[in-house]
């Protein structure tokens, strides 16, 4: 179910991006939606384990909101919006929010969920066993 959801998102993002860059009506909005959805769908697809997101659903939804909100701000705020610390609001969002927040948030999330969603000792043991059996088969041949 989780994998299917990620794949549907990925298919929608592909079509939205293709339509946008081929110049369909509302192209910038389609490009923004596709651009925000692509990384979320691919991270979700890579993180699915035994058909579940394993607690990543909410962080990924937040990532989508952050990216989509940031790109929407770029499109909707006239001339980038009012000044914040001397920079237009949308530019300040890009530099001070859209880069550091996902960088640290996703980096820490990956590190601290690695024991559950990354590589476990039993995964490694299974890989080593399979490698040994593969080498044994080659030896027999």
């Amino acid at each position, binding site marked *: 179910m989780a994998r299917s959801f990620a794949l549907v998102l990925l298919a929608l993002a592909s079509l939205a991006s*293709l339509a946008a860059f081929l110049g369909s009506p509302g192209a910038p909005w389609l490009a923004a939606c596709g*651009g925000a959805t692509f990384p979320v769908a*691919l991270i979700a697809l890579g993180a699915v384990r035994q058909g579940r997101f394993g607690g990543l659903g909410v962080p990924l939804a937040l990532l989508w909101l952050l*990216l989509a909100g940031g790109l929407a701000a*770029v499109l909707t705020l006239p001339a980038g919006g009012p000044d914040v610390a001397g920079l237009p609001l949308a530019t300040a969002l890009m530099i001070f929010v859209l880069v550091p927040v996902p960088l640290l948030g996703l980096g820490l999330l990956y590190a601290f969920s690695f024991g559950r969603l990354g590589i476990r000792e039993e995964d490694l043991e299974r890989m080593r066993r399979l490698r040994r059996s593969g080498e044994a088969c080659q030896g027999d041949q």
Partner: protein
Amino acid sequence: MMPLLGRPLIVVSTLVYFAACLGLGVWALRRTRSAHDFWVARQGLGVVVTGLATMAAAFSGFVFLGGPGLTYRIGLSSLFINLSIGFTPALLAWALAKRLRLLAEVREVYTIPDAFLARYGSRAASGAAAVAILAGVVGYLGAQLLAMGTLLQAVLGVTLPAAVGIGLAVLLFYSVAGGMMAGVYTDVFQGVLMVLAAVAVFGYAMAAGGGFSRVIHSIAASPRFGRPFLEPLGKTPALTAFGFFFVFGIGVLGQPHMLNKFYMIRDPRRLRWLPLVLGLSQTLCLLIWLGLGLAVPALVAKGKLAPLARPDDAAPAFLLGFAPEPLAGLAVAAILAAIMSTADSFMNLGAAVLVRDLPRALRRKVGNELLWGRLATAGVAAAAAALALGYNDLIALLGTFAFGTFGAALAPALAVGLNWRRVTAAAATASVVTGTALNLGLEFLARQTFFPALPKPPLPPGALPTAVSLAASFAVLLAVTAWTGRREPPLPEDISAVMEA
């Protein structure tokens, strides 16, 4: 760039940098005894080494020279190229790093086409990936050699062919002798140098402009640049800006010079820290883009620097006109490091395509991979240098869209195919062929000036050909999978285990 012979510290820092690279080459030569050592550095790297080497291979001289120049030309909308840096390290880790490293645990995979062969069991898919890599390598490597030659020509005051020859001799020495073992450890040295120089130049550039707030104020108040320079889109079409974001954010999943580093990490469990190490080193390195991209226009706005005739002179103009000589020396060494760390990765990749990937796709096996790998590395570098010197316009053109070619050709089949069992070999091959052919064709038509009669591609204003190719490649993969993969294709048990983990 003006000749730098009169700047002894810059020449000295260049020579010291070369000496360090040669020393690392000698060190690696003593440790390179097999093809395993030569192609994947004996799979003995820690996570910090892997992260720094990945960053150094990914960031070419463009970050140090082209980025500030592009910002001078189009304003802060250039940052859309870097905006995805917030999520790309985690995206790489979740979508690919784990699968690729586990693949190396169960199979003898050294290259990205090896991963195609293992996952899809298809020589066509693997061969198509190898051809796409070779096409990108020619452009990327040639462009790096040209950039290295241009910089060394200015530093050492020699002709361009001699400058390319000197730089190539250093590159060849450590790459041929030590293969990826030398490549990775020189990448780490080069990566550290790049981060140090980027942080130091950023700090100095902000100080030279009177601090961040005054830099921003000077630009906004200037009639030449004005507030539009600081706006997120400025004069850049939204489709171009979002195209940058898409291509650099998703295309990163197809960059073989970054991905093959994931095979080399010693303990797969150390991948836990990869996104943070990679992301932080990349962010620090990009400070030079932001720092010079803001400081140079601010200095021009204040009348302290003459307006630039060529935007690409932004970094050299600041380093030679404002930075103290030791800092300029460090920065020149870092620029060389950025160029050479990318070039050595491509020499290794090109050699692997010729010695390992294409022969395997054609059901051939090369006997002594270590020897032939060394010869092929020299051959690839010499061919790229000859092409770069003989057809520099064409090579520079190819270099500009090599990133997109890799992304469009390889990202879908790797990122989706390693995480979804239903993707078939036919779908992967169709995606690789679509991405490669569409990107090369559209980019060439969009940028070429060699054949005036050829039409421009039928794309809307501002749309990047690479963005179209990348989106089309994903769409083709999904469509052909839906068409051909109604049932999950049977997978070997070990590949199944890698994809389930």
